[in-house]
């Protein structure tokens, strides 16, 4: 790596190290990182949680959160024919402030929190322009409207006068991009810009960044954990692990001739989820009697009217959905945010009471039960047979209880085992999910995300369930841990005769795990069918658009660029 500014490098990072002093010792968050960001090119920095990729990016503009600090290295910015060393500038100096926003634009993961809800969108961009470019109000507004037009916000003059909460997630991210570009920066740092967005929106945003890059010759540093996104947009890739860059090369090199074992593992975990699992239990028999029948289930949320207000119009979160779950089957429910898939899962558990419809459960004694009519006692029995795994492994475990208490609680409440017998059962459950029984006395905070999710699974298994509803059970986890958890669930299915309803927004996970897939859009069931068929040759236009927007982890075969687009009813057209 001996590039200089002559070959288009606008920002060069040499031997950058960032330390975080902790109570005991020092955490070396970033170690000897070297990067070259070139004009018109996209460099992707990939790694799993905690690899130091965000800290690296933030340190490029002296934005490391306290108590972290840059301990060594140089960050050289080549603009206007001169080199400026960013690490030599004070974190609050006017020079660095001129560079942030002026030379280097930033966009973050969470477009919701990056915008003030108290000010109109236009005013927020105007302000940035007034500060950095010293334009007057009128000129600033003109430029704001122009920027909003560039980021393809329809009707920019009118939209500038709206507030951020009137924008959808994708449009907010567009506004953030417009703000980042307000002062014509040379470099754009995008920190997980699409992680919080749906796949179709993600595709739109990545497309937009690509187009703006071509128009302006921007150098882009894209930070992401998603190898699919990397393959779709990156020219060069740097793979980070534990604060170090373990491999660096062109996208093609990284994907086709990876050298470092970590890169191989990361790619392996991503590619593994690109096809159906070969561990599937194969217990699914479409001809068998279903054990769970959902008929015309609907949920309307709406204002019922109180003392001072009239009843407002209701939102149909779930609208007339029917399907069957067979014994030993893995049924996936996919959809974008707001499609009603979580509400559907919660209605089956009766955490949310349905507005109308039927849920029929066939118990182990072959008797049909109307779940929605169950009273206290019956519901308790139903909840023992149909269990749930939650999305967030941090929120779903009581931080004040030990693992033994958490996993043993269902046994205690249902008077299944006590004392010694309960401890033995908890140990057995923990070993079943791949944890050591010695960990029983620890509290959840001592475990990693993947381990916590295993604890959640052990709790679900405690009552010998027949059906498990997993609500986004793997979406908070890193890709390598994601496939481990999915394999664990498949393995448990073989041993314990389970059926799964697997709710996810990530189609690759569903394809890997499920026998059949149900696609939801705006509360309605769009399509239901064999997983392989829905994921490869979907019949409905919406599903086609959804599938084609998924990034393909293959730089030689970029799927997103050739995606099909879906236009539903006219009012949904405003969605970015």
């Amino acid at each position, binding site marked *: 790596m001996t590039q200089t500014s002559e070959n288009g490098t606008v920002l060069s990072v040499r031997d950058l190290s960032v330390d*975080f002093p*902790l109570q005991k010792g020092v*955490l070396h*968050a970033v170690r000897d990182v070297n990067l070259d960001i070139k004009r018109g090119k996209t460099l992707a920095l990939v790694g799993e*949680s*905690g*690899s*130091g*990729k*965000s*800290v690296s990016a933030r340190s490029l503009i002296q934005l490391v959160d306290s108590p972290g600090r840059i301990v060594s290295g140089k960050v050289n910015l080549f603009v206007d024919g001169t080199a400026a060393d960013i690490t030599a500038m004070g974190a609050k100096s006017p020079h660095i402030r001129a560079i942030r926003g002026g030379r280097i634009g930033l966009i973050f993961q*969470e477009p919701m929190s990056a915008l003030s809800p108290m000010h109109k969108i236009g005013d927020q961009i105007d302000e940035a322009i007034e500060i950095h470019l010293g334009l007057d109000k009128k000129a600033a507004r003109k430029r704001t409207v122009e920027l909003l037009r560039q980021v393809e916000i329809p009707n920019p003059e009118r939209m500038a006068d709206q507030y951020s909460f*009137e*924008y*959808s*997630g994708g449009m907010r991210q567009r506004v953030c991009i417009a703000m980042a570009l307000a002062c014509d920066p040379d470099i754009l740092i995008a920190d997980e810009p699409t*992680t*919080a967005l749906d796949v179709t929106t993600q595709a739109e945003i990545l497309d937009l960044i690509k187009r703006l890059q071509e128009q302006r010759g921007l150098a882009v540093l894209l930070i992401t954990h998603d190898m699919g996104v990397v393959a779709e947009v990156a020219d060069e890739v740097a793979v980070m692990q*534990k604060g170090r860059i373990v491999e660096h090369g062109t996208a093609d090199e990284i994907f086709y001739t990876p050298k470092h074992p970590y890169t191989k593992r990361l790619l392996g975990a991503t590619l593994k989820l690109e096809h159906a699992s070969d561990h599937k239990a194969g217990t699914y028999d479409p001809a068998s009697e279903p054990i769970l029948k959902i008929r015309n289930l609907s949920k309307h949320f709406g204002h019922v009217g109180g003392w001072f207000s009239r009843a407002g119009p209701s939102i149909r*979160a779930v609208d007339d959905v029917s399907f069957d779950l067979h014994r030993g089957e893995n049924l996936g429910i996919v959809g974008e*945010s*707001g499609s009603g*898939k*979580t*509400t559907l899962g*919660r209605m089956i*558990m009766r955490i949310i009471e349905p507005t109308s419809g039927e849920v029929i459960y066939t118990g182990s004694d072959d008797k049909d039960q109307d779940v929605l009519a169950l009273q206290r006692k019956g519901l308790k029995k139903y*909840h023992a047979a149909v*269990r749930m795994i*939650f*999305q*967030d492994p*941090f929120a*779903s*475990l*009581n*931080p*004040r209880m*030990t693992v033994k208490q958490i996993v043993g*609680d269902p046994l205690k*409440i249902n008077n299944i085992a006590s004392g010694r017998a309960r401890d033995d059962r908890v140990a057995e459950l923990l070993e079943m999910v791949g*944890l050591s029984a010695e960990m029983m006395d620890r*509290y959840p*905070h*001592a475990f*990693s*995300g993947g381990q916590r999710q295993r604890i959640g699974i052990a*709790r679900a298994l405690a*009552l010998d369930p027949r059906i498990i509803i997993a*609500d*986004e059970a793997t*979406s*908070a986890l*890193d890709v*390598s*841990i994601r496939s481990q958890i999915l394999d664990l669930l498949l393995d448990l299915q073989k041993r314990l005769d389970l059926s799964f309803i697997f709710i996810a*927004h990530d189609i690759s996970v569903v394809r890997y795990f499920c026998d059949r897939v149900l696609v939801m859009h*705006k509360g309605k069931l769009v399509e239901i069918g064999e997983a392989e068929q829905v994921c490869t040759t979907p019949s409905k236009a919406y599903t086609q658009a959804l599938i084609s927007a998924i990034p393909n982890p293959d730089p030689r075969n970029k799927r997103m660029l050739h995606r099909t687009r879906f236009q539903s009813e006219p009012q949904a057209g*405003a*969605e970015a």
Partner: protein
Amino acid sequence: MGQYSTDDVAPRELGHDPDDPALAEMEDDGTEADGRLMGLERAGAWRLAWWKFKRHKLAVASGILVLLIYFVAAFAEFLAPAAPGDYAARYTYAPPQTLRIWDGEEFGLHVTGYKVEVNPESLAREFVNDPEQKIPVGFFVRGSSYEFWGLFEWDRHLFGPLDPDQPMYLLGADRLGRDMLSRIIYGTRISMTVGLVGVALSLFFGILLGGLSGYYGGHVDNVIQRIIEFLLAIPTIPLWMGLAAAIPPTLPPVQVYFMITIILSLVGWTGLARVVRGRFLAMRNEDFVTAARLDGASEVGLILRHMLPSFASHIIAAVTLAIPVMILSETALSFLGIGLRPPVVSWGVLLQEAQNIRTVATAPWLLLPGMAVVITVLALNFLGDGLRDAADPYSK
């Protein structure tokens, strides 16, 4: 413009910062991270909270001071050199004496005596410390007898003049020649327990009504919140005055004391109820509570086993911050003459003596109970702040 996600997860999935450096080393697939978390792994929430509290030096110091003050309240009879009602007309408004060890000739703990001089300007008789006179003092001396906690009779005091008939006024004397130090010590008992009993009552109502309000929501919540708003809308001083005026003057002091605590907690519970309600509302839909509900936990089990422990530490902090409010309210009421009345001794009652500007000018030590109030209230507030910060050991 799209629909807002009513049920979905995209933002939640980022609930923890994936690039939090503290998590950097913990987040790994296997169990290899375990060795690095020695000690932390088995520490429960309470132990973590204690670790965090310990780092807050001011709060720890205040905590020790508060314990000391309650210790004084518990052992008032023994710690006070004299009984609160012991009067000596000879020593009206006697100024504080100085405590000395060395009198110029020999060692020996003693206080100086008084002599009376006539002020040449005002021609009033005034006490002056007389270094010539020596009143020897000692520890564990005999004095007025008292019934210790109603258990046994005793006449030993921690500290006092060797000869019980000689005067010792370390913090001066009041209008009737009563020892201010002893009275402040006895006042501690009443003032501090009014805070405790009042807060205990507030806590009971606060948790009960706030819990009902937050857990059930809907109409129950609506009704309880409107009651709270109504109570908070009434100006407190007139409300107290009205209620205190309703206490029959013939009532024995102990009953007046309880009436006052009830009056104080009548307003005090509203704040706690709001804290509790907010916590319940936030926690009702937490995943781990939903999980416990699906485990089959009953409502009582949910509240007692899963929800209350999660915010018990917050309640403790809220209580610590509520006690000084109670103490101040009692002081204010008694100062205005509508709270506790003599012969009951509380800091507020003592401060009644300091209402007259002329007495304050001649005997400024009558304001010392005010110092006691200030120190106690500050200590409780610092302690409460420290506890509140420590209450959530998982926050930064």
